């Protein structure tokens, strides 16, 4: 069973995304892959754009494996968006390879927001 927890669900662009992925033992997996990425969903089938990936192999044989992670999001985004034609969606994806073509996958969406600027003089 996969669990994902994030320190915050709304992360400004360029900030650090921090969290932990958990794997509760139910068979010994070959590897555990964490992937953070975004997809823009319009009319065409969406394509996943990974910005970072972490592969844990071999996975320690314990009852509950915790993989903490932190990653700096790209400064230029994209920011999450829900418009009329298109959507931009970020997610953390955890994939556990159990061997024999067996896989367990879990995704947790989160929101990337514009970075607040304080030191900027308006005319």
């Amino acid at each position: 069973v996969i669990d994902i927890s994030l320190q915050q669900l709304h992360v400004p662009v360029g900030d650090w995304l921090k969290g932990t992925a958990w794997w509760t033992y139910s068979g010994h997996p070959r590897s555990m892959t964490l992937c953070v990425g975004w997809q823009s969903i319009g009319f065409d089938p969406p394509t996943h754009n990974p910005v970072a990936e972490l592969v844990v192999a071999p996975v320690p044989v314990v009852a509950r494996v915790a993989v903490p992670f932190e990653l700096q999001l790209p400064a230029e985004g994209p920011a999450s968006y829900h418009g009329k034609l298109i959507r931009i969606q970020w997610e953390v994806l955890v994939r556990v390879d159990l061997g024999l073509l067996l896989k367990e996958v879990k995704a947790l969406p989160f929101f990337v927001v514009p970075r607040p600027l304080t030191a900027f003089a308006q005319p």
Partner: protein
Amino acid sequence: MPMQQPRMPFLRQQASVLPLIATKPVPQGVLVVEQSHRRDLLMGVGVLAAFVGVMVLFMLGIMLYFLIFFGVAAALGAMLQGRWENVAHWAEMVRDNVSGTATIAGYVLLAFGAYAIVVLWRTELTATRAEPGELLVARWPLRLGQREQVRVRRKLRNLRVTRATATLVCEERASSGSGEADKIHVETVYTAPLPVSLVVAQKDYVELLTSLTIPQTGPPSFTTYNNSISWSLVVRLEVASFLPLESHFPILVLPEVLP
């Protein structure tokens, strides 16, 4: 058991999701040249090419029609008489009888040509009487919530500007399909008319000032191969005796928000 793997490595340097907008640094800020002027010129050339194409097709059609008509009618007349040596005589008779039709076809061609010339005059000539517009911004790129005064200028050739309007527009574009079935869907998600003050309105030069504010809750600029979010300033100049001149200036909005 927590693992000591705190940082995730970046897979690769991802391609920029911000649109590439050509700008030129100047002492007062940044200059953005409009992209729509070239399109106006191309439209004029396109109308001309379409006109020539239609005329050629039309004339070929008429020629073919008369060739068939002459041949069939003359052969039919000769066959009915049973005297094939009279084919030339029958052909002359047919030609004399259809000369009225040919005259009407000539008038149709003339009217079509006159209409095409008017269309050309109103599109091509308007575009050629103006240089591409220029947008002068003090700070570039813009941020969400940013208020900025911008200056728009354009060189003209004997055009009298009677009125100017400016609009801030945000559009979403999404493509679907591929190849010939490719279709681009466009949806305007934000539009706001802006106050405009004409600083100079001469026959050879126009300059205007406007103030725009990117809404705080709006989306930043974004582009991928099939989806995009684009901001632009649309400036429309009403000119006497010609079509209005419309300039589209792309604006780059970063994912940063001002308080």
